[in-house]
């Protein structure tokens, strides 16, 4: 099985990706590790006119670079170098949880332990006395269901340890099969997604299309019908 990992950081993470690939060399699974650069200096293409990260540009870039791709784990850098009141890893996770394709992925936050983040939020409140802003940040942090927090210096090991525990998602195998035979079409017997090639059907499943459950049921139903031994069938 190939587990899909995305690292979101403002600095290039090529060295970390090499380290992760090295760490899983002897594991019973592979990792396809990609990075998404957000913030200065290396992710400067999502900086808006006001000099801060622009979430609309982030969404556009994500769609452009990854489209319907699904990830098992997304690791977010907490500090995105966006200055006071700017975008950090928490607000980015909040945005990603609103995107259908990334909602289900497990998420971790690195470069700060939870205690450091809480301390920073409290300091912010201490300095500004802005209760609403501070409480908003805490609320977001509580609701995000982040699976782990870790320091930057050991985050590669943490990623490998977490992704190892993420079991295969129900659609992984179907999608892998469809992608491997992506130029083919199903016969019209299946009715749903008729006319689409297998790659396009995999896109539909990955994007959580409303018909995809019906399609999977029909696929299993017809596969069973085709393979079952039956006299006079």
């Amino acid at each position, binding site marked *: 099985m190939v587990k899909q990992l995305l690292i979101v950081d403002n600095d290039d993470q090529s060295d970390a990706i090499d380290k992760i690939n090295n760490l899983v060399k002897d594991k019973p699974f592979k990792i396809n590790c990609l990075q998404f650069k957000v913030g200065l200096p290396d992710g400067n293409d999502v900086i808006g006119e006001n000099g801060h990260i622009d979430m609309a540009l982030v969404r556009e870039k994500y769609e452009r670079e990854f489209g319907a791709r699904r990830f098992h784990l997304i690791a977010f850098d907490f500090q995105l170098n966006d200055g006071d009141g700017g975008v950090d890893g928490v607000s980015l996770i909040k945005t990603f949880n609103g995107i259908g394709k990334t909602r289900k992925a497990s998420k971790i936050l690195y470069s700060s332990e939870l205690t450091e983040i809480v301390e920073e939020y409290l300091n912010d409140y201490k300095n500004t006395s802005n209760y609403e802003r501070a409480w908003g940040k805490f609320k977001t942090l509580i609701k995000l269901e982040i699976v782990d927090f870790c320091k930057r210096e050991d985050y590669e090991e943490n990623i490998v340890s977490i992704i190892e525990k993420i079991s295969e998602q129900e659609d992984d195998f179907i999608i892998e099969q469809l992608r491997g035979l992506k130029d083919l079409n199903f016969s019209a*017997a299946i009715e749903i997604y008729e006319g689409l090639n297998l790659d396009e059907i995999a896109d539909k499943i990955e994007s959580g299309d409303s018909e995809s459950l019906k399609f999977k049921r029909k696929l299993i139903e017809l596969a069973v*019908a*085709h393979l079952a031994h039956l006299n006079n069938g």
Partner: protein
Amino acid sequence: MDNPSFHIIFPKDETTDFLQEIIDHIVDNTDADVVVHRIETINQHVDFFASAQMMIPADAIVLFMGHGMSSALSGAHTSEFAYGPFISDNQLSLFKERKVILLTCRSNEFLSNYGLPCGLKAGIGFPNLITDDYELIRPDEPERVNGVTNQNVQDFRRCLVDIIKFSIEDYINLKLSFYQLYKRIQIRAQRQLIQYYNTNQNQGKLPYGKMLYDLNHGVQFIGN
């Protein structure tokens, strides 16, 4: 389990005479006790319903073969009947506590509407089935017969008879549950669908394929 008895209600109608093969097959290939009620006249109809509850044992399977709609079953197309309602929602209660197979058009809707309220133990119903050329000339759902040929109708008759007769044979000889009978009908419809498109590749959806798809999709089970 003893071999089940089958009470087959089969109103006389030349457009459904082709279903006789199902009865012949059950008789020739199983040891089931088969009683056929071939009803032609109003008197026979009245007599049958007057005595049906007594005549049909509680553990018998009732197989009705004829025509149908969502509100009633019909079928006798004789000088006296001409597709009048044959089994209405009220008369369906005669089959209370029994297992019924309603091999007619739209009996799936009929069962959904009346099956459980009438106290049927279990029922198998079917969707709209195009089994007569007349339906191509005067269709009640024109979009469903688009492109359907007379040959398609003949092929569908053959297919339907095979699906039902072999599934009932399995049900009796392999001592399956009633739900397994339903699944046997469904899997045979699915195999027909797969086979048809395997021999007619890269032509997109075809009218006959749609008939098979509707059969597979529309066959329904209620009860337990």
